[in-house]
Every structure is written in structure tokens, then in C-alpha cells.
């Protein structure tokens, strides 16, 4: 009977993959991801356009000349009366006017004013304040009689380097930002995959039921094979879609984004395209076939390490250095992905089989989707903040919540016994739900014109074949 199961899975897969909606979605999503990335990138870029702040310095302390311009703010001394200055910064569309009144005390500077148009953003206020504080500090340091070297040493920045230590004493860099990012991405992926494709299972079963093809199918295929064939076929569709999204997004980010973003990166592309133009590479690379061109691109990057390689490669480089158990994450993701999907899609399939009309699915959808939604919400509000807490532990053990809860915990590191127990429980969980779902399915698909209640469903479970 295994071949029939495969035939069913194959049909489910092919009919879905060939649909226009699948092709459109597969092409559109990477475009959206890249487009969204570019949009955010451009926004961030535009946020970094330099704003000009006029400075009217009446203090006589020479503060204006000590204000250090940043990429965001440029300070520019203006002359004239305060009233004139107030007028002119608005006319010239400058960000604001910083006024240092006469008689300002060096040690207790009171009465400094910042005029801006409309309400002043907290961000801007902070930046101006910081520049001002720095300027006062600089001024005082200069007057303290320290040498230039001593001054430079004082100014030295102290970068914070977080290091995580594991049980074996191995030390690795830690980055809570990246870890959190990965955890969130995994949780979102699993959550949406289960929802998106679980509902597809439900619709598919409903379609078969309402088109009355069930009886023909069941005279050839066992209900269990029919249900599992559908589930596996749709899972393959999902995996195909994710694979294509991954490949297309990777392709888009490494080839399209560099072209669109900034001049420095398009310069790099030019170098890669015409290796001979790069003086450092000389004549060896001039006889270029494509692998050499790749090397040329790589060397071009080495020449200029400040310029980034492909976004993905860069990310993997960073991940490698961080204490993130990549192997465990990939393994765990696949296990929880499949386990969670199997568990939920079987239930979705049972719902599709139990009801006559798609509109009747609501009453059964709620209890099924509740644990999933709960694990998502709690995952982001509690587990992400405290991945080793009791809530995180219990939710990553219960099969209905573990797919989302556990993948959130994975990047932070999970004890092996917990992972093993959780996976074992998940397997027990999906075998159990598939068993229950198959029994409801078997009875439901041939039942028409009956308003189904929970009591009815529980009876179906004990019907004889």
C-alpha cells in the first residue's frame, strides 16, 4: 500500500506546486523580503543625513569650536543677535539653534538653550546634549595641563566584548542580539508554516469531501494513507517553498542588493566584473574564466576589508564565531518543524473531514489553534527573555507548544536531556494526534448533512472499521 500513499502525496505535491498562486508566492516573497530590506536600509540611510545645528555662542568660553560634528549633526557657528539667529535657522531649514548665553559657568553651565522647529525629538536632544557635554569635558581637559598623549589615552574608547563560557570552559563570543534574532526568526517560521499549511490540509480535505470524490478514493486507498499522503505531500510543498525562498533571497541579497545599495559596493562589483582593471591583481587574473573572476572578487574584498561580502556569508561568518549551537539549531528546527506540522496538520485534517461546510470549521479551529497561538505569544513575551525559566521548560515539553517554544530556546543552548525528552514527547504527541485524527477523519469523510458536535466526534473515535 506504500505506493498508493506515495501516489497520493505526489498528486498533492504536483497539483499545488503547479498552481499559479504557488509560483507567484514563491517569486514574490523573496522580492518582498529584499524590497523590505532595501526599504529599511534606505530609511536608515535617510535617517543618517546630516542635520545642521546653528550655534550662537555668547559665552566666550569657545564652546562652539569644541562641538564635534557627528554624521548626524553638524554644528555651525552663526553671528548676529539671538532674534536674528532664531529667524535664520528656520529660514535655512536647519535643525535647530543652540544658544550659549553670556556668563556661562564652566563648572556649572546653566541656561543653555536649544531652539528647534516644532517639537524636538528625544534623539536629537540627546545628541546635542552629548556633543555639549563632550565639548565641556574637552575644554576642561585642555585647561588641566595634560599632554596630548595623556589626553588621547583618556579619550580611549572601551569596547565591551561579551564572552560566554560553557560547561567545558570553552569560551566564545556571545551576542544576545543575534541569538534573540535567530530565536525569533525560527519561531516565526515554524508558527507560520504550521498555520499556513495546516489550513491547506483542512481546505484540501474539505474540497475532497464537498466534491464527493471521497467514496471513489476510499474504494482504492485506505483513509489513513489518503490523509497521510496529503499531509506529506503538502509538507513537501512547504519545504520546496522554503528552499526556493532561501535560494532566491540569498541570490537577491548577494547580487541585487549590492547593485542597489551605495556606490562603494557597486564599485566592488565593477572590480569583480573586470579583473584586469584592478592593478593589484595583475595579468594572471586577466585571463579570467568565472572561478577566477570569483577569486578576483574575493581579493578585491581583501584589498578593501571594510567593504562587505555577501550579506549571508557575512552572517554565517559571525555566527561561526558566536557561541550559537548551529548544528543543534538546524537539527532541532527540522525535527520541531516536521513534528509540529505533523501534529497540527493531522488535527486540521480531522476538522476538515468532520464538517460539511468550511464556515463550520470555526468552532473546531479555535481549540486547535489556541495552544499554537499561546506558545507564540508566551514565546515572545516570556521565553525569549528567560529561556531557562520554568515557563520555558514546561512549554518546551508539551507537544502542542514545544515546536515554537523549543526553537526559541535552541539558540540560547538547551541541556541535552531536555531536548531528548522534548523530542520524545513530541513523537508520542504526534503519533497520538495522528491516531485520533485518523479515526475522526475515517468516519467524517463519508458523513454528510450532520451537524457535528464534540460529543459526536468522541464517539467516532471508537467506531469499528
Amino acid at each position: 500500500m506504500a505506493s498508493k500513499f506515495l501516489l497520493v502525496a505526489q498528486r498533492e505535491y504536483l497539483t499545488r506546486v503547479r498552481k499559479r498562486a504557488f509560483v507567484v508566492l514563491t517569486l514574490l516573497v523573496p522580492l518582498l523580503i529584499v524590497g523590505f530590506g532595501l526599504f529599511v536600509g534606505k530609511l536608515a540611510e535617510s535617517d543618517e543625513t546630516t542635520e545642521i545645528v546653528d550655534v550662537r555662542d555668547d559665552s566666550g568660553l569657545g564652546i562652539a569650536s569644541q562641538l564635534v560634528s557627528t554624521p548626524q549633526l553638524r554644528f555651525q557657528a552663526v553671528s548676529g543677535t539671538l532674534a536674528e539667529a532664531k529667524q535664520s535657522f528656520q529660514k535655512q531649514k536647519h535643525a535647530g539653534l543652540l544658544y550659549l548665553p553670556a556668563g556661562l559657568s564652566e563648572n556649572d553651565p546653566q541656561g543653555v538653550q536649544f531652539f528647534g522647529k516644532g517639537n524636538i525629538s528625544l534623539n536629537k536632544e540627546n545628541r546635542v546634549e552629548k556633543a555639549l557635554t563632550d565639548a565641556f569635558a574637552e575644554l576642561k581637559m585642555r585647561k588641566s595641563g595634560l599632554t596630548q598623549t595623556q589626553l588621547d589615552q583618556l579619550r580611549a574608547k572601551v569596547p565591551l566584548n561579551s564572552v560566554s563560557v560553557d560547561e567545558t570552559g570553552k569560551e566564545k563570543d556571545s551576542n544576545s542580539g543575534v541569538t534573540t534574532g535567530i530565536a525569533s526568526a525560527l519561531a516565526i517560521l515554524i508558527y507560520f508554516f504550521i498555520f499556513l499549511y495546516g489550513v491547506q490540509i483542512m481546505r484540501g480535505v474539505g474540497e475532497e469531501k464537498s466534491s464527493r470524490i471521497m467514496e471513489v478514493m476510499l474504494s482504492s486507498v485506505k483513509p489513513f494513507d489518503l490523509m497521510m499522503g496529503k499531509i506529506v505531500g503538502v509538507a513537501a510543498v512547504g519545504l520546496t517553498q522554503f528552499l526556493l525562498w532561501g535560494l532566491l533571497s540569498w541570490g537577491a541579497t548577494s547580487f541585487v542588493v549590492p547593485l542597489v545599495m551605495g556606490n562603494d559596493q557597486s564599485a566592488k562589483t565593477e572590480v569583480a566584473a573586470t579583473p584586469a582593471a584592478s592593478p593589484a591583481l595583475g595579468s594572471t587574473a586577466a585571463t579570467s574564466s568565472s572561478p577566477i573572476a570569483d577569486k578576483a572578487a574575493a581579493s578585491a574584498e581583501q584589498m578593501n576589508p571594510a567593504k562587505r561580502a555577501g550579506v549571508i556569508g557575512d552572517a554565517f561568518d559571525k555566527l561561526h564565531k558566536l557561541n550559537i549551537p548551529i548544528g543543534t539549531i538546524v537539527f532541532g528546527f527540522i525535527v520541531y518543524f516536521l513534528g509540529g506540522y505533523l501534529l497540527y496538520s493531522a488535527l486540521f485534517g480531522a476538522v476538515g473531514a468532520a464538517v460539511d461546510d468550511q464556515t463550520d470549521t470555526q468552532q473546531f479551529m479555535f481549540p486547535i489553534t489556541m495552544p499554537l497561538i499561546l506558545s507564540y505569544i508566551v514565546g515572545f513575551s516570556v521565553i525569549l527573555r528567560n529561556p531557562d525559566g520554568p515557563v520555558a521548560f514546561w512549554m518546551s515539553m508539551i507537544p502542542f507548544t514545544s515546536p515554537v517554544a523549543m526553537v526559541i530556546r535552541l539558540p540560547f543552548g538547551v541541556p541535552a536531556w531536555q531536548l531528548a525528552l522534548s523530542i520524545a514527547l513530541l513523537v508520542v504527541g504526534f503519533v497520538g494526534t495522528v491516531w485520533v485524527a485518523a479515526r475522526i477523519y475515517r468516519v467524517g469523510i463519508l458523513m454528510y448533512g450532520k451537524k457535528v458536535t464534540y460529543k459526536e466526534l468522541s464517539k467516532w473515535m471508537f467506531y469499528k472499521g
Partner: protein
Amino acid sequence: MQQATSRPILEARDVHKHYAAHTALDGVSLSVPERSIFGLLGPNGAGKTSLIRIITQITGADSGEILFRGEKLNPSHIGQIGYLPEERGLYKKMKVGEQLIYLAQLRGLSRSEAVARIKKWLERFDIKAWADKNVEDLSKGMQQKVQFIATVLHEPSLIILDEPFSGFDPINANLIKDEILRLKDEGAAIIFSTHRMESVEEMCDSIALINRSHKVLDGPVKAIRNQFKTNAYEVEGQGRLMVVHPDFEVIEQKERENDHFYARIQLHAGTTPNDLLRFLIGQVQVHSFQEQIPSINEIFIRRVRETMPETLNETANALL
């Protein structure tokens, strides 16, 4: 030939099936001969579909057994059975050709074999141009043809047709009738299940009547009708018919224009039709004279009346 008719292709022995609220089959036994058309007749809700679902292995019997060519029915027989359910349905968004290939493969046919046979069938039904169309783009009648092809494509030796002519227009119904007879000639056994007994009566070689989850009657159609004939004769002729005779009795008599008449005459025991004829010839001009043979419908009602009089009214209502 003697061999083939002696062993039935399908045999049901004391089959019981209970659902939560009611009993669908209560000790039903029947046997379907090879190379024949078998009518499974009875009103709606009699248990026909339950029996068919057991034969097609969609559900199992609670007790009793089904034998396919002497072997206990099992999944290896799926490829030898074709089933056209009462509720017709196909995948709407799937192309006709692909759908037929898929359904045939599920019945154990190889892809290449399926493709070759589909071509033949589509030509025969004159719908070849539709192979690449989605099922939902087809008319109801064409969908029915496609469904019929799907039922017989794997050349099953047992074909089960549940209410086969419902939904077909008269032209297509005739087309299907011819195909069914052809399939029988080629060696298949066919089970017709219907509550409209008159629609299949003329095609059936043997029948089983089912009522309220019990089999009430089965056997070859001719034998059954002979068994139930009442020794009554229909006479049409010209003249003035007056029957006062100890051996005959008029059940019904109608006078028609120009001195014509129609009459049904019951023969009493020990009297032959020739006796009646001789009596009639002396009186009137006989235009037609034939034995009155009850229809399966009449037999059914009579049989039910004999066996379970309390259910008659409901059953009769279901039939009308």
C-alpha cells in the same frame, strides 16, 4: 462456461453491519454469478449502499464474510473491482487526462498502460478534445462520462454501479447501457444498485431484493418472475366477452370503442391456457393473448407483504 457460472464471482455470507443508531445489514447473504448483470434492488435506506461499501472495502462488516472468487475479500482485490458511487465526484481543478491516470494508478494500473487505455476510451466517448481541460469546465454529462471511464479503466472483473443512470440524459444513458452490455460480453460481472427497479429490470440476469436490512428475495430474474406468476392472462380482442365458467375468472375487464375489449383472466388450478383460448375463440375475435408476468416492483411489494406486513406501507411509500 459451465465452470464460470457454477462459481460466483462474489459471495456474501450472513453479513451484519450495525451503526450506532441502526442496523444496516442483518444477516444478508447473496451470490453474484460471473459474466452477468446482478441487480441489487430495494428502497432508499434498505442497506444497499452499506453492502456496497463493504464489498468495496470502504468499511468492514461486523460479522459474516465476503468471498471474491472463493477467496476472502482483501485489499489485493481492489484492482479487480470498479465502483461508481451514487454521489459522483472528481477533483474539480484537475485535468481530465491526469485525473484518469491518477485514479487508474491507484487501482494498480501502470502509467503507460493507463495512458493508452484512456486514449481509447476518450475516443469511444467522443470527448478526446477535453483531455486537457479541467473537470470543472466540463458539462455534467461529460463529467459523468469521465467518471464512468474512471470506473472501468482498470478493466475490473466486478463493476459496481450505484444508481447508474441518475444524472444521465436519455442519449447518454443509452450509451452507458450499451457499454455495460459490452463489458458483460467481454467477461465482467456487473452489480446494479438502484431503488428504481424498473430502470434495470430488463438488463438484469439475476437480482436480490433488500428491504430494511434484510434480503427478501434473490435469484435469476426469469425464475423469480415464473415463481411469482399468478397464472393470469391478458386478452385483447373484438366482440362481446362474457365469462361464466368454473375454470376461469375475470379479474379486470375494459370495454373499448368499436366493440373492442381488454381483459385479465385468472386460470384456476388444473386449467391450461389452451383451455382458455378454446373458450375465447368460440366467443370473440382474439387479437392478442399473453401471460401476465409480474414486474419486479410488483413482486417486491408482494414479497414484502408476505414476509413483513407491518412495514409494507412505509416501503410502498418509499417506492412511489
